[in-house]
């Protein structure tokens, strides 16, 4: 068991973390590069910066903007608060970083972390239920749209049990192992799934706007490539 724990906490964790960070950086670099290229080639470089920034900000901090399906929006919001804060600011996690690489930063009080963790767990199940209960999202939902929230809940459920052994009906070590393995796998999945939105989202409004800023000769070049320059309409 100890060897497993060691593996999950050490090499597996670092591999997954590096994979995630590099994967996200790759997405970011490619997107920035292509965005710059699109801007460079655009015939009309007059980008409505204000509108793009407003739209971007509106969705990065979406509380003022719940829309018709406000229960769903509130659920995602609550879910995100926990999912972002707890892994980064849990006292126990920071302690591990301090021991491991000597870095440390302020932590959330454990009581707050516990509440946020409970929120994430409830919200993850609520996301799945809300998706299944609304006609449009049910029609659209793919396997991953249901599986991801549930899978994200696994490290939170197991983490909660690790923190509060009195609530834990299972043995401590297997619970910890589940926690670490699921967290490692989750990190691994981030760049490969729609979870990559955590790095790409701030760029999406800009990217959508730029797509309308055509290169001046894109049309004629496509015509040439397809051998249609001289063709009658």
């Amino acid at each position: 068991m100890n060897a497993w724990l060691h593996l999950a906490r050490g090499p597996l964790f670092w591999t997954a973390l590096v994979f995630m960070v590099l994967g996200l950086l790759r997405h970011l670099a490619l997107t920035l590069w292509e965005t710059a290229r699109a801007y460079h080639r655009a015939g009309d470089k007059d980008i409505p910066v204000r509108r793009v920034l407003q739209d971007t900000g509106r969705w990065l901090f979406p509380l003022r903007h719940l829309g018709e399906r406000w229960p769903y929006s509130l659920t995602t919001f609550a879910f995100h608060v926990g999912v972002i804060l707890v892994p980064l600011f849990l006292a126990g996690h920071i302690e591990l970083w301090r021991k491991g690489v000597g870095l440390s930063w302020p932590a959330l009080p454990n009581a707050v972390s516990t509440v946020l963790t409970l929120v994430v767990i409830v919200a993850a199940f609520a996301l799945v239920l809300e998706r299944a209960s609304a006609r449009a999202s049910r029609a659209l939902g793919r396997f991953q749209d249901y599986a991801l929230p549930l899978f994200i809940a696994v490290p939170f459920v197991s983490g909660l049990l690790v923190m509060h052994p009195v609530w834990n009906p299972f043995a401590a070590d297997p619970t910890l192992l589940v926690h670490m393995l699921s967290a490692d796998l989750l990190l691994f999945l981030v760049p490969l799934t729609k979870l990559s939105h955590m790095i790409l989202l701030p760029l999406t409004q800009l990217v959508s706007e730029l797509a309308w800023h055509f290169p001046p000769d894109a049309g004629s070049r496509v015509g040439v490539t397809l051998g249609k320059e001289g063709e009658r309409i």
Partner: protein
Amino acid sequence: MATPTRYAYHVEAAALEMSDRPRRFLEAFAAILRHGSYNVALDAYARMSAKCGRCASSCQLYQSTGAPEDIPCHRSELLLRVYRRYFTQSGVLKARLFGGFTLTDAYIDEMAEAYYRCTACRRCKATCPLGMDHGLVTHLARWTLAEVGVIPRALLVSVREQLEGNTHNTSAIPLPALKDSCEFLSEELHDIYDVDIPYPFDVEGAEYVFFPAVSDFLMEADTLMGNAAVMHLTGASWTIGSHNYDGINYGLFYSDRMMERIVNQLVGEVHRLKGRKILVGECGHATRSAWYVPTFGGPDAPPVVNCLEYAYAMLEAGKIPLKAEKIPERVTYHDPCNIARVGRITEQPREILKAICSDYVEMTPNRTKNYCCGGGGGTVSIDEIRAFRTGPMGQRKATQIRDTGAELVVSPCANCKKQLRELCQDNDLGDVQVVGLHDLLLRVIDFGTNGNGGAAEDAALGAESSGSRGADPMPVTAAAVATPDAAGEEGEES
């Protein structure tokens, strides 16, 4: 020539005979991705799409059909699936290992149907947390489909005439007929308002070269008289170019390749006349296409002004004298998506209307959140889908209009006007009149003459042009386009 069987809209026979479409589609898609700038957006959408369903209820079509195929994200996924499978490394790898999705003829047909069930009005974009622009995906998908021949015939014949025909305009109006038409409008202005207002042709060095939707010359007499009156009263130097007098650009609806050529043709006419600015008439998509002049026209492209912006500025400057009496009927305003969605032209028309109407009411929602008239994205020109446009696609707009209780619906757009008229006819709103903004402005302008266009004359004018208001004008146009040579010598035949 047209074979109506395959899609909801007619395409030319050649399109149905094309072989090897999946390969050609992918070649075209590859070329477009390489030369255009769509790839960044597609990549982001393909990766992130949350499939949350928020966009569904913002689309007027889904609101009335509730069909899964009509969810914006579902429609966009059709093209994104092709993109993922053939143009991303992971997609190619996955296909190699596990097989799965392959582009087929039937799939192309599914896209052909789906992307013409979206008017590319872009209303849904504002509700997507991930900023997915389904109007953009529709725009791109239609271009790619066009390269395998899938183009509604109504759009194709218009563009063919505009770029390769003798008349260089989408309604195939020959120059003599156009001049007759303008002369008639001048006479009309004289008879009703006792003013002499010319339609100047080929004035070199004019400040404004005027490009309305060319169909206005046949169908929107009042709008064009209003346009001329405003230019005349404000002492503007303006002109109509005899080589190109059509602001319509259906390239925007199905092919950037055509759009580029049409914009370049328009800029060419301005340069020929040594004009300084482009003045676009009351037409949403013509205005949005003209906003692409800086894209295609290079560094010394002429600035673009929409006639509403011009009229508003002149009204503000006190250069358009108004009578004391305002328009008494209840008036509401429909925002054309192409000028309103990004908030570029929403206030100017309202300010004008508030100044000239005594009972102006808003329909809700409006401005950047307006609902499409139901005929956007060029679908209004496709007569064979009228039942769709005025049914599921237009119902929401019909309800909005009904709720205002308005007698006059103003929309400064040739496409919206045609659609709204048909919508009112088909939805028990027969008493509602759809007009342009300059039509109303003309009614209240104080020309300082005796023939001030009293009530009786207004009524006479209304009766005279009611044929064009009520009747379905496009068959005439389509016939004219189909046989350009025989196209009526008289512009007023409709």
